[in-house]
């Protein structure tokens, strides 16, 4: 029974979001990925979280040659534990994404984390303070970007002394 239901959820996602899904990938059983345009994240996340009752697991950012890629992982616990990841790409020149925290408070921490470690600005985040780095951390250095070097930081610090 659980299996039939799970097929339902995935086809519902495909059907309702078909004008927003750019590409769909079924990696292995119960693991799905789909790409959307950056501007569509709020309606897509709202649909998955509020309409379908998916649980927001976390988001993860990766620095790729094309820009910063953000994956939002959602889990359908009651429909066979499917994990669906929503993928979007934001260029480094205009690194901003609309925040999903206003309607998913559980995303507050991770968006703050991505903001300070990968330099993606989350628009309309209710509490955009840095989460992990100390107060004197330079706000233009993003440790998880590929062009970040530990040594830059230490040298600069020593020069300042």
């Amino acid at each position, binding site marked *: 029974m659980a299996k039939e239901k799970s097929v339902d959820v995935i086809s519902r996602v495909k059907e309702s979001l078909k004008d927003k899904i750019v590409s769909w990938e079924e990696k292995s059983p119960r693991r799905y990925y789909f790409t959307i345009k950056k501007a569509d994240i709020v309606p897509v996340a709202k649909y998955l979280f509020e309409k379908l009752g998916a649980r927001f*697991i976390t988001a993860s950012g*990766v620095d790729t040659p094309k820009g910063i890629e953000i994956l939002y992982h959602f889990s359908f616990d009651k429909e066979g534990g499917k994990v669906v990841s929503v993928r979007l790409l934001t260029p480094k020149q205009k690194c901003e994404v609309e925040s999903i925290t206003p309607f998913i408070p*559980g995303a507050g921490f991770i968006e703050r984390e991505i903001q300070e470690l990968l330099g993606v600005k989350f628009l309309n985040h209710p509490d955009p303070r840095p989460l*992990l780095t100390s107060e004197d951390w330079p706000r233009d250095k993003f440790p998880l970007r590929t062009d970040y070097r530990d040594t830059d930081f230490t040298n600069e610090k020593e020069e300042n002394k």
Partner: protein
Amino acid sequence: MSNQRKTVIPIGPYHPLQEEPEYFELYVEGEKVVDIDIHIGYNHRAIEQIGQRMSWDQLIFLVERICGICSTSHPIANCNAQEDLAGVEIPERAKYIRSIVGELERIHSHLLWLGLAGHFLGYNTLWMWVWKYREPILELFEHITGNRNHYAMMRPGGVRRDIKEEDIPYLTKVLDEAEKKIEMVTKAALDDPVLAVRLKGVGVLTKEDAIKYCAVGPTARASGVAIDVRRDDPYAAYDLVEWNVITQEEGDVFAKTVVRLLECLESIKIIRQCLEKLKKVKGDIFVKIKKMPPGEGKGHHEAPRGETFHYVRSDGSNNPIRVKVRAPTYVNLPTCKVTVPGESIADAAIILASIDPCYCCTERMMRVIDKRTGKIELDGNDLVRFSQEKTRKLRKELGL
């Protein structure tokens, strides 16, 4: 926010009596907490970044070091992710061994929490007893894995060590004794009038808030959200044995305690069935993963505190290009924003402790130098003292 006129009580970030660095700002009016601010970031070790420089095999050892209590939950989650990426199914015998190690860890972690909760409430007898019952479990770990903690039992594609046939009677004996003790503690704790007054109706997390804050594990299950990765997305041997997901509806600290205690008994049930199967199922304990293909993998494991989620990404080379770790406390901690306000300062310590926070799991990514030199008027030690005094007063009132 209009927090300027309220008194601020900082707790942390460093104190000899706090187990881990953490920093809370409680905004109080009189005795009542009206708002709370959570600061994390004092425990960073750049694990995600270091992980990108490791080989796939080394990565398991690295993530095992994320946490000292639930040290096998990160490796299980990471192995699940790597196996998803490589498209590998592990041998049946390895599945049972994984479940046994995972559940033994749940028992010792829940007992550890119960002991600490007892200490926060001024029940030091409970603390000492429970930790005494936890000890045989750790000795058992040393016997079958070689270590009391950091067992290094998991490897991508299976497990590293077998559980020997001749060790099974010893395992069963320890479990039988643990079961008796846990049942005894459960009865003693749940029937205690003072514990009931201290914990019932305190720090209530409603079902709506649990869903909104995406809470996981016992924190969610105590609020009536029946999610458990072991049942919902089965891995290891969890779909091959019979067991129940424990839920409570109340959402208060008492419900969280009940969930954890009953879960220990469920864990014993799972381990017993796995041991029975181990006697029959023979064969390999791992399959070799020759080459990691390019792509992505997602894996999760129900750790004692809730779902641990790992995401790995490969470009086909010997090391991952991205490792993402989401520990359960990362989503459970923000629920304190709704559970603590409205309660008294004396109750704050136990509510903050009720999610079983684990900061070394929550923060993994980079080094942080703390330069905060604010004067601390009240610290975690004072809070524990307040909480213990309240219990003492209650006891006197109840004539115990």
